[in-house]
């Protein structure tokens, strides 16, 4: 009963927040709505007994990613409204609606999942973070290390790209920029 109430509340809030994100003209409103939607998504993870995933969702998305967006937006002019010229607005909703319809039909259809066996079944009496840790550091150790290297590469790329003088790279110069620099 409470699960149903929580599910419908969370889904209503999440859908509204994400809809604001994709339709808002103001970048700050869009970012705030996205952060709120992320928090509500973590509610689903707690409902689904994935405690550790919910905590990671809050820390990484609303902590790290949103802070990164907030700092990145200092470089942009976010007080002005975003001007967007949508060529075919009806086509957008038609395509998205069709995709949603196909996805819903495919997901609601009876799943031939009787033969699916749990590869790493959840055991009774073990808390979720502990079980996650055991599986992550035994069966998924190599992907975990690869993900660590990927995050390191992303960090270095972020530092280098946002650093000084990167806007004067010679490899991407266009002709008028050359003449503009020459005229100065």
């Amino acid at each position, binding site marked *: 009963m409470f699960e149903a109430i929580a599910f419908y509340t969370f889904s209503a809030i999440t*859908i509204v927040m994400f809809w604001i994100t*994709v339709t808002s003209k103001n970048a700050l409103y869009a970012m705030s709505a996205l952060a709120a939607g992320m928090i509500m998504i973590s509610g*689903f993870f707690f409902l689904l007994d*994935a405690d550790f995933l919910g905590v990671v969702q809050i820390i990484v998305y609303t902590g790290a990613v949103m802070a990164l967006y907030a700092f990145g937006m200092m470089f942009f002019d976010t007080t002005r409204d975003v001007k967007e010229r949508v060529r075919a607005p009806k086509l957008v909703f038609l395509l998205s609606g069709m995709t949603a319809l196909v996805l819903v039909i495919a997901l609601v259809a009876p799943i031939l999942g009787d033969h699916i066996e749990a590869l790493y*079944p959840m055991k009774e009496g073990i808390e979720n973070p502990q079980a996650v840790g055991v599986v992550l550091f035994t069966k998924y150790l190599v992907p975990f290390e690869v993900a660590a290297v990927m995050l390191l590469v992303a960090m270095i790329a972020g530092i280098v790209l946002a650093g000084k003088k990167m806007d004067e790279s010679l490899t991407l110069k266009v002709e008028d920029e050359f003449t503009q620099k020459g005229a100065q």
Partner: protein
Amino acid sequence: MITLSHYLVLSAVLFAIGLVGVYRRKNLLMLLFSTEILLNAANVGFAAISKFYGDLTGQMFAFFIVAVAASEVAVGLGLMIVWYKRRGTLDIDSMQSMHG
């Protein structure tokens, strides 16, 4: 009673909302927001499958998706800052230097 189908339909709806954003947004920052929505919709689906089949693999994949999203944001924001410094706009229509 909330079943697996409820969660999967919710995941599909969230994915469609993100798809609307990807289709109609012309600003790079907003486009990046929409991709975050897409990744989160997939995460909800993975966690639901993980719970209803009693398997931890779904949660593992959700963790790796979170890691991918974090690194995507770092690199994407860096590229956007470079572009904004050079051109002064984040409009996608201004990126037609190859006239494709």
